[in-house]
Each structure stands twice: as structure tokens, then as C-alpha cells.
């Protein structure tokens, strides 16, 4: 089909090269591409597959937990299911999700670059991710792993008769993919910014990915080495974590959480970046406190390295260590709170419209705040000791990772979908999915806070009957959530097939990525853009409603007919 046949195709007044999608349609042109946009889409395809696999495992678990007795699967299978769910979701979905898809696609365009600094390394990083994912999946198909995603020693090294070595090798390989991606983004931001794109003009999405990349590069190797130590123990009978030979299993936890706490910020920082772009655009407001946001992002990235001990309050570490880690965990809430307050202040007085991506972004702010505040409960040692290894923890980190990060991922996907594909999706369906996701999420995970506080331990496939009602609620919520995740597949597919042409800038957003065609040409820009103003050039903070740019135009836009179906 030709673009000219659709109304709304922008007339650029100059001839643009064909879009990146038209630069080749063979499988080979995709699998050997060095175009950051295509690599972003390769990642989008692969993380979607991993998300489905991890989601199916969760669905089976929630079905099992509908009754107090273990009837659907055996206890051992249940252990393997939650390990599968954790390993796949953490390392093959959450960690790569935003940086490698939206980051890959948008970041170079947002700084006015033609591509990332090392395009071939970028492609290699996708193959490493696929190789790691394949190893992990093979481990799971052969019979699975029963250690939980944390691979705690000495169970994982001395006792587990499951495919720990293979799964650890998979995560190890995927780690190199993370490091390559992080390195690439750091160098890209340093060397590929276009004329006039100074550091303090970078969109906060770029700052977030930059900070995330620093964490990826400096934290992932700690995970790699501790997994190598586990493999060494299992394959070569080393004694590093074996108490009978003088080894200390707790050392594993220290190194593991030295990576895995910062990993939380690898997951959430890019989400915060996405949400900033979306909130400013749909409230037509310059972001409140740009510099504070930048320093909050960097503060989170740095402090994130010094709080790992809050995962180990009951491990027997010294009380003094627990106190210090507790204090630092409270401290790291400050930059996160700064971000939440700044988002609220950005919204205040804005001309807010509720497009689907805005709904997701607003959902993020609420759910992230819930997750963050319960994180403060857990940072305080006495409360943590009470709820350690209960569903309270499960609910807490799902609020951050699913409520926060996945909402942000969907916010970004909806926000940039017109740029990526050149087409609009059905706004009505998308809003319905966003609301459904918010409701489904809360129905699933809020009861788990209560369950945890009542003392239901995590990682069990059966439970006392008095917990059944709340578990039923949770499982029911999971069904809503599953429906909400299925909906985008439908309307995104419809959008590809019959979606209305988006035009260059359907949201009238300010980033450089909106200053080129949708979908963009292979080179991103017909000629390198020049930046002469700060980001988020929407109306200023104290503008009166009358001064606010053409609110009427936007209403016209909302009145545009729905796309044909």
C-alpha cells in the first residue's frame, strides 16, 4: 500500500529517503541489520516471547493457588515454575525491556544521531541475549531449576538436582549482552549528540537510559562472577560456598545483591524516563525541576550500589551492618520521592488529556509510589524481620516491577508506536486496556500485601484454608491482568494492518525523534538537526490558561474519527 493513499501523510516539501522498514524486507535484512531501530524491534519481538513464557508460568501458579491444597501441580513442579517465572521475567524481560527496545529505537533519535556508536556491537548484544535466553529455556525444558531466581547457596551449589548450571550459564551470557548494550549507550550519549544538544538539554529519558547504562556496566559483572563461582562449585567441586569445607554461603548473597539491588534500578530508571516524556507531553507542561530530576536520576544510580544489605536483614549479618543498610535504604527513597513530587508538580496546572499512554504513565506514578512506600516498610529492620519471605515482599516488588516498570513500558510503547510504525492504534481499545491493567494489577497484588502481613510465606504451593479468599481475589485479578496484556496484541496488530497514518508528530511532542518522518528513514534525519533550546518546550510553568498554546487544536485532534475497523 502506498502512503500517499492515506490522508494525513505529511508533505515534507523535500523528498525523504525511504523509511527504515523499507530498507529491506528479507529475513536476512533483519537478522544482519545494524540499524538501531531494527535492532530495537528484534528485541521487542524476543522480549515479547519471553514475557509470554514467564506469564504462562505465573498463570499456572495463580491457578494452583486458587485452592489451599496442592492439587494442580506437585510441590517440586511449583518450585520450578516460580524459578522459571523469575529467571525469565527478570533477566529476559524486565532488565532488557525498556533500554533495548525503546532505548535502542528512540535514544539515538532523541539526541539527533544517525545510530548508536557501535552498531555491530548492538547487533551482537541481541544475539548474546538470544543465546543466553536459549540456554535458560533449554534448562527449563530439560526439567527446570528449583532454586528460585536468586540461586541461593548452598542449596544451588550442594543440593539442587536441577539444571542450575545451564540456567546460570544462560544468565551469564545474557549479562554480556547487558554490558554491551550499556557500554554502547554510554559512548553514544558521549559522542553522538547533535549540534547544540548539550548535557543539560538531554531529554530525561536519555538521562535515565544513560544512568541505567552505568549501572548495567558496573553491576552486571558482579552477577557474572558470582554465577561463575556457582558453576565452579557445581562442575569443578570448588568449596567457595560450602560450609563443610569452610566456605560461607552468605558471601554469595552479598555479591548477588550487590548486583541485584542496582538491578532494580536498571528496571525502574528507564521507566521513570519514559513516564517523564509522556507526562510532560500530555499535560503540555515543561518538566518541573529539570536539574533536580537529573541529579535524582544520578543519585539513584549511585546510592543504589550501597543498599544491598537490606535483602539480608535475617541472614545473620551484624546488627550494625543492618542499621547502616537500613539508613541508606531510607536515604535512597529521597531521590525517588523527588521524582514523584516533580511529576506531580509538572501535572499541576497542566492541560491534561488522557490518551492511553498518559493513563499508563499516571498508573505508573501511583503504583510506583505504592511500591516505593512499602519499600520503606521493608527498609526498617523490625518490620522487615516480620514480613521476610512472605507475600508482602512479593507484592512490594511486583508493585515496583509490574505496576511500575511494565506500566511504563506500555506507556512508552503506546507513546512511540506511531513513530515506530507510522500508524495510530485504536485509542479507545488502548485506554480500555490501560484501565484494565491498572485494575487487574491492583486486584492481583494488593491482597498479597494483606496475605503477607497475615503471615503467608512465599514460594509454597499450598496454604492454610483461611488464606483462600484473598488468594482467590489475587488469582481473579491475574485473569483481568492477562486479558489486559492480551488486548494490545489485538489492537497493535489491527493498527499495523489498517491503522490511520500517524504523521510525523501526532502528539505534538517536543523531542527530536518527533522532528522526522514516521516511520523514520534509515538515517533518522534528512539532515542532522540543530538544537537551540531546552527540552520539554511546552508552555511554561506559570502560564495562564489563555496563554496556553492552542488547547482547541488538541480537542480537534481528539475529535478525529476513530480508525476504520
Amino acid at each position, binding site marked *: 500500500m502506498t502512503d500517499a493513499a492515506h490522508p494525513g501523510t505529511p508533505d515534507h516539501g523535500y523528498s525523504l529517503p525511504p523509511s527504515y522498514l523499507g530498507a529491506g524486507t528479507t529475513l536476512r535484512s533483519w537478522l544482519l541489520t545494524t540499524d538501531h531501530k531494527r535492532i530495537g524491534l528484534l528485541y521487542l519481538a524476543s522480549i515479547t516471547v519471553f514475557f509470554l513464557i514467564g506469564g504462562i508460568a505465573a498463570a499456572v501458579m495463580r491457578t494452583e493457588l486458587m485452592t489451599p491444597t496442592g492439587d494442580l501441580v506437585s510441590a517440586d513442579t511449583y518450585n520450578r515454575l516460580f524459578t522459571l517465572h523469575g529467571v525469565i521475567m527478570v533477566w529476559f524481560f524486565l532488565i532488557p525491556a525498556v533500554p533495548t527496545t525503546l532505548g535502542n529505537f528512540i535514544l539515538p533519535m532523541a539526541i539527533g544521531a544517525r545510530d548508536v556508536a557501535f552498531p555491530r556491537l548492538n547487533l551482537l548484544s541481541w544475539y548474546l541475549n538470544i543465546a543466553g535466553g536459549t540456554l535458560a529455556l533449554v534448562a527449563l525444558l530439560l526439567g527446570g531449576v528449583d532454586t528460585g531466581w536468586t540461586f541461593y547457596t548452598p542449596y544451588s551449589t550442594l543440593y539442587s538436582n536441577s539444571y542450575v548450571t545451564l540456567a546460570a550459564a544462560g544468565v551469564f551470557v545474557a549479562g554480556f549482552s547487558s554490558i554491551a548494550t550499556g557500554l554502547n549507550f554510554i559512548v553514544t550519549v558521549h559522542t553522538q549528540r547533535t549540534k547544540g544538544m548539550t548535557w543539560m538539554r538531554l531529554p530525561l529519558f536519555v538521562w535515565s537510559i544513560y544512568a541505567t547504562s552505568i549501572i548495567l556496566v558496573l553491576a552486571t559483572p558482579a552477577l557474572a562472577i558470582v554465577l561463575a563461582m556457582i558453576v565452579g562449585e557445581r562442575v569443578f567441586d570448588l568449596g567457595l560456598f560450602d560450609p563443610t569445607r*569452610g566456605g560461607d554461603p552468605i558471601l554469595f548473597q552479598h555479591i548477588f545483591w550487590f548486583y541485584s539491588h542496582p538491578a532494580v534500578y536498571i528496571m525502574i530508571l528507564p521507566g521513570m524516563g519514559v513516564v517523564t516524556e509522556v507526562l510532560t507531553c500530555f499535560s503540555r507542561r515543561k518538566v518541573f525541576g529539570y536539574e533536580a530530576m537529573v541529579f535524582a536520576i544520578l543519585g539513584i544510580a549511585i546510592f543504589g550500589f550501597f543498599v544491598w544489605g537490606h535483602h539480608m536483614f535475617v541472614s545473620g549479618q551484624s546488627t550494625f551492618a543492618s542499621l547502616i543498610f537500613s539508613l541508606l535504604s531510607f536515604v535512597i527513597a529521597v531521590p525517588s520521592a523527588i521524582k514523584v513530587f516533580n511529576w506531580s508538580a509538572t501535572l499541576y496546572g497542566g492541560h491534561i488529556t488522557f490518551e492511553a499512554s498518559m493513563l499508563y504513565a499516571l498508573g505508573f506514578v501511583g503504583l510506583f509510589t505504592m511500591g516505593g512506600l512499602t519499600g520503606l516498610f521493608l527498609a526498617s529492620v523490625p518490620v522487615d524481620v516480620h514480613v521476610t519471605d512472605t507475600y508482602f515482599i512479593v507484592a512490594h516488588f511486583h508493585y515496583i516491577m509490574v505496576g511500575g516498570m511494565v506500566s511504563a513500558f506500555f506507556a512508552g510503547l503506546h507513546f512511540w508506536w506511531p513513530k515506530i510504525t507510522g500508524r495510530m492504534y485504536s485509542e479507545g481499545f488502548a485506554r480500555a486496556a490501560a484501565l484494565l491493567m491498572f485494575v487487574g494489577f491492583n486486584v492481583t497484588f494488593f491482597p498479597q500485601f494483606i496475605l503477607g502481613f497475615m503471615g503467608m510465606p512465599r514460594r509454597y504451593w499450598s496454604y492454610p484454608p483461611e488464606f483462600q479468599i484473598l488468594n482467590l481475589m489475587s488469582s481473579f485479578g491475574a485473569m483481568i491482568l492477562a486479558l489486559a496484556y492480551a488486548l494490545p496484541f489485538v489492537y497493535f496488530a489491527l493498527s499495523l494492518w489498517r491503522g490511520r497514518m500517524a504523521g510525523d508528530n501526532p502528539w505534538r511532542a517536543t523531542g527530536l525523534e518527533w522532528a522526522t518522518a514516521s516511520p523514520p528513514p534509515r538515517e533518522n534525519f534528512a539532515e542532522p538537526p540543530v538544537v537551540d533550546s531546552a527540552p520539554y518546550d511546552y508552555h511554561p510553568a506559570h502560564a495562564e490558561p489563555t496563554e496556553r498554546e492552542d488547547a482547541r487544536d488538541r480537542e480537534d485532534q481528539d475529535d478525529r474519527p476513530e480508525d476504520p475497523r
Partner: protein
Amino acid sequence: MSGLNEPFQTLARQRGAAELGIWIFLASELVFFGGLFTGYSVYRFLYPDGFLAAGAETNLIIGTANTAILLTSSATMAVAVWAGREGLRRHVLWGLCLTSLLGAGFMVLKAVEYAEDIRKSLVPGAGFALPERGAEIFFSFYWIMTAIHAVHLTIGVAAVSLAAWRLWRGRVDWRGTAFLHVLGLYWHLIDLIWIFLFPLLYLLGRGG
């Protein structure tokens, strides 16, 4: 051949990017080995006697020879990088060939040493030779640290040999690019790691 790759417009910017990239990579490598050094320190503190007894069992002569070999190889690598900057192709080739030969020499000696360690039952697991508590942990670290170092060195020798061969055939843009500098920095990292491993694994327990 200009050596300029997408998406760069100037060689200077591309060189800067490649150098920044390798430094970031080296930083991540330091964290990687840092995990091992942390573990080593913890157990060294817990089992001072076991570590002293075990440290005296490693082969000091081969360890010292290998340290000398790696230090020399860093010098020859530096010669190659320096010659590259001056555009002296023949000197670059000589520097790279010597570097990769010295690296290979290190590995041969290391293999001899490993064989001796196995003969002396210094391998953790059933039948480990030393009775002192903590000695087995020391050798766990000895094996994993030297093995990971050897993997890095193998990659280094392969990369340097490949570079020499491609340079000889004229298939690589080494003039004005960061190619040799990046290779050199990686090689120096391998050397640097060994400089830390040597006292931790070979000089411990030799004081008496």
C-alpha cells in the same frame, strides 16, 4: 581505506569513542575480578593459617617466570601501539608477534604448573592434599582466578594474533584509528590483573 565507520563523521571522534568504550569495558572487568578479590579477602581474614600454608604450595618459580613474561609482553604491546602511532608498520607487526608469542609462552608454563598442581592433589574436592582449614578455599580461589585469567589471556592471544595476521595482509585500518590502542589497553588489563594475582597466590606464606 579511511577506517571511518558508521555513524562517525571524523576519525578523531571515532577514536575517542573507541577509547571511551574500552575504558568502560575495563571498568566492568575490574568489577568482575573485584568479586573474586572480595571473596579472597574475606576468607584470607577468616583463615589466615590455612591461606599461609596453602600459599606456600604454589610453584613460585613458574609464577615468577610468568610474571616476568607478562610484564615483557606488555612492553612489546606498548611498542606496537607506539609504532602504530608513528605509522611504522614493520615495528607494529614485530610488536604484535612478540606479544602473542609471550602470551602463548605464559600459557605453556601455566599448563605445566597446572599439571604439577594436579599431581600434588591441590585440586579442591575429595582427596585434597592439605589438612589446614581454609587451604581448600585458597585453592578454590587459585583455580578460579587463574582459570578466568587464562580465559582472558587466550582471548588476548587470539585477538593479537588475528590482528597481526590481518595487519600483515593489509586488511585492517590501523593508521589513525584506535584499533591498536584498544587492543593494547585490553592486553595491559590482563597484565594488571596478573600483577594482583601474583602476590595473592604466590607470595603468601613464603616469609619463613
